[in-house]
């Protein structure tokens, strides 16, 4: 989780990424940030997040992102 | 409560309809200036007495025959239902429309409109059709003669057609909002100015002299309708130097009249005996007759109409005489006005274009 926070701090330092549950809906994560986020997550967690997983449900909160990471790690 | 709500709704809808009607009336052209033809169709409905003769056709009808002279000299009551570029189909529907309220003894149809079945300018259609009273005849007239970019709904709601006229509203639009002055004398368009015939375009041969099949159909329908109602149909062609009335056209009408036992008067051939002098009797160099020419042609036509069974001298009828005396007064007054103005200026201000 901390690794994820680090990435988020890097990309959206202004946003309240630890508690917010509407990061995408509120426009904190636009498509640009989303792609940067995915790229860094891929890099750090050694994953490859497929494009169809880039949905508001998966990225609206840090928790949801973590769940996604765990799920994809399980599939690997 | 419910009833009150309904009442409020109805009032609101009625008020909205009133606003739309007001705007429609304001924006529709009044045709009280240079172009008065837009009022011709409508004026017919103001007639209080019937007619023994109804005359149909385009400019060759409403500019060349004077019903007032027909009355004054023959005691024949008549009305011209003609308009600018009135198509034969429109003449048919106007006849149908007129026959709802009266049955004349004779119908005179000017057949120059056989040469062109389709309308060439939308504004002619509006002038002929807008004044027509609503009935199935008007509905069918619109559908039969509207141009490609015209729509029936623009006749039902003329505001859709004239909505952008707010930019060009004139004094006359307000002046004649409620009531218009009469512009015709029983459908006759009077011109007392003179413009002698000069040089005319050369007569060109045409590749095809046949009339449109649809024009023939409407001519048949007019004939059948007259037969059905026991009306004598007379075909005529007014004298005009131009546009040319070709021999090939004439012979087709002659043949048609023969087959169906109709009278066909080609007044163009009779110009001399009628006494038409194109250096004096025309106001636009030989295309149309002025009042002097029209009166001459009317006298010629009157003697023929008088022979139609049922057409009588009605000058003895006191009631009719009173109505027509007023028409005569109006006619003489206008004619004198125009004559005086023409003598003074050499043209008529109302119709003057630089």
């Amino acid at each position: 989780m901390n690794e994820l926070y680090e990435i988020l701090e890097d990309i959206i330092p202004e946003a309240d990424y630890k508690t917010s549950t509407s990061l995408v809906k509120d426009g904190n994560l636009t498509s640009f940030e989303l792609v940067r986020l995915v790229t860094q997550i891929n890099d750090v967690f050694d994953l490859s997040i497929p494009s169809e997983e880039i949905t508001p449900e998966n990225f609206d909160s840090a928790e949801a992102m973590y769940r996604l990471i765990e799920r994809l790690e399980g599939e690997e | 409560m419910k009833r009150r709500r309904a009442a409020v709704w109805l009032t609101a809808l009625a008020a909205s309809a009133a606003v739309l009607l007001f705007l429609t009336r304001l924006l529709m052209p009044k045709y009280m200036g240079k172009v008065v033809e837009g009022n011709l169709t409508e004026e017919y409905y103001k007639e209080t007495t019937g007619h023994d003769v109804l005359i149909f056709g385009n400019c060759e009808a409403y500019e060349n025959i004077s019903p007032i002279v027909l009355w004054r000299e023959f005691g024949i009551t008549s009305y011209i239902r003609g308009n600018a570029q009135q198509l034969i189909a429109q003449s048919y529907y106007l006849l149908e429309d007129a026959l709802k309220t009266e049955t004349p003894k004779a119908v005179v149809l000017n057949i120059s409109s056989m040469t062109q079945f389709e309308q060439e300018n939308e504004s002619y259609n509006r002038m002929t059709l807008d004044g027509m009273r609503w009935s199935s005849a008007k509905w069918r007239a619109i559908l039969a003669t509207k141009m490609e970019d015209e729509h029936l709904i623009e006749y039902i709601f003329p505001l859709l057609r004239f909505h952008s006229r707010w930019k060009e509203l004139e004094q006359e639009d307000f002046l004649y909002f409620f009531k218009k002055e009469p512009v015709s004398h029983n459908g006759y368009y009077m011109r007392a100015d003179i413009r002698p015939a000069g040089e005319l375009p050369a007569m060109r041969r045409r590749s095809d002299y046949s009339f449109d099949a649809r024009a023939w159909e409407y001519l048949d329908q007019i004939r059948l309708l007259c037969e059905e109602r026991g009306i004598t149909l007379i075909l005529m062609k007014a004298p005009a130097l131009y546009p040319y009335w070709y021999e090939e056209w004439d012979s087709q009408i002659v043949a048609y009249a023969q087959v169906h036992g109709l009278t066909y008067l080609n007044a163009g051939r009779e110009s001399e005996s009628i006494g038409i002098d194109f250096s004096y009797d025309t106001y636009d160099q030989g295309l149309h007759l002025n009042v002097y020419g029209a009166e001459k042609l009317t006298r010629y036509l009157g003697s023929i109409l008088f022979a139609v069974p049922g057409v009588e001298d009605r000058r003895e009828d006191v009631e009719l005489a009173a109505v027509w005396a007023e028409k005569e007064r109006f006619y003489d007054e206008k004619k004198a006005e125009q004559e005086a103005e023409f003598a003074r200026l050499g043209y008529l201000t109302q119709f003057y274009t630089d």
Partner: protein
Amino acid sequence: MLLVSYSFAAFCLVLFAVYYLFSGRLQWVVLLVFSGLFYAHGGVRGLLYPLVTTGSAWFLAGRIGRQTKESGRYMKEQGFDRMQKKAYTKQVKKKQRCLLTAGLVLNFGILAAAKYTSLFMTLGISYYTFQAMGYLIDVYRRKYEPERNPARLALFVGFFPQLTAGPISRFDRMREELFREHRFSFSGFRLGAERVLWGYFKKLVIANRIGPAAAAITGSPELYSGFFAFFGMLFHVIELYADFSGCMDIVLGLSQMLGISLPENFERPFFSKSLSEFWRRWHMSLMQWFREYIFFPVSTSHFSQSFAKAVGRIGGRQAGSKAPVWLAGLVVWLVTGIWHGASWRFVTWGLANCSVILLSQELSGVYRGFHERFAFSNRPWYQYFASLRTCLVFGLLQMLIYVSIPELFGMFLGMAAGEGLSELCAGGLLTLGLDLADYGILFLGLVLLFAVELMGRGGSVRERFEEKPGWLRYLLLFALFLLVIMAGVYGHGYDASRFIYNRF
């Protein structure tokens, strides 16, 4: 059939009557039949292309769906372990990708042929192709199961209001809308009609009136230099927005009258504070489509991610994570440009947009510092300034569509030299086909449009309008109706009532 025509109005009236008469589970069939009629109005042959698209999407998505199901069952039967499952799924996916590719190549091939050759052109081909291909990709991605009934898919692809200029909608969302029962609701019907009226206001009163002036300047930029160019840009943008968003209001309002909600395509774009925000609020459904089916796939593709790693090794993690964004942004804007038209002008326009957006993205750190340092940048007037700046940038970039870059520079030099200023002062705007009365109407219309959009910042204007007393609403709506009827440019002598965006 044009949205601004009496025949379209008659078509809708008949549709409403039949639609609510048949309210029930088969209501969607009425929509399908009328969509077919709408399409066939322009010639029965035109039906061929949407049928091919629907048919291929239905067939291929069906195959893909069946393979997904069968493979799941097979893996269960065989009792595969995780590794075996992964290998087998990969195999199936490969087969499915072939089917997907076939569908995409066929349909985008038809689209390209229609757009870039003069062989044929058929109504709404871009919009329905995008919808159908979105559906196919979604099924391939296992987002939902394929639709079994080809007729239902045909309605999704060819729902007639969308054929003029979109919006592009998604199957999972539209499925809920199209195929349920819609009972007549007076308030829904009225709300829809109100929106249609507002759309016609934008289209007839503003877009159609300003159109000739915009066309005069943008059509011959060599004649109109200097300050005229500025007005040309202004008029062009106004026309584009009033035309396109007006069309959307008509389409969405009409759908609402049928009880169907379509996705929004505009969210007051001219109040955006940056170009990238602008493009999230302008032609939204298209940009979302591009984002979901081009931007994300390209940026997360194996190639992009490897590229990111390579860049990361040289320029650090920051730069590495940005590399896919740059790459995918470039691709999306290239496609956006080419989609708008097969010419270098559009490519230039797309790339220019891309450059501005990516550059401002790069400079976001600088902006942040600026906002922290200068308190005034949080004042309302600064927000307006930011919106105005965005509009200007958008307008300038739009100019690239009708002038070349050297011409654009020429115009600015001309403007700096005061070119055209004296002609403008001498009434030059009156030579563009509009007279003083036209400009008066335009001004009034724009003030109204701007006021309503401004009100929209405080929440839905329509909802707040609903709270007003009935008599006031009636009065205002009747006034708007009169405005459309009287000040709208339509009818006799006007035959150019085509929406700009139905060319696509």
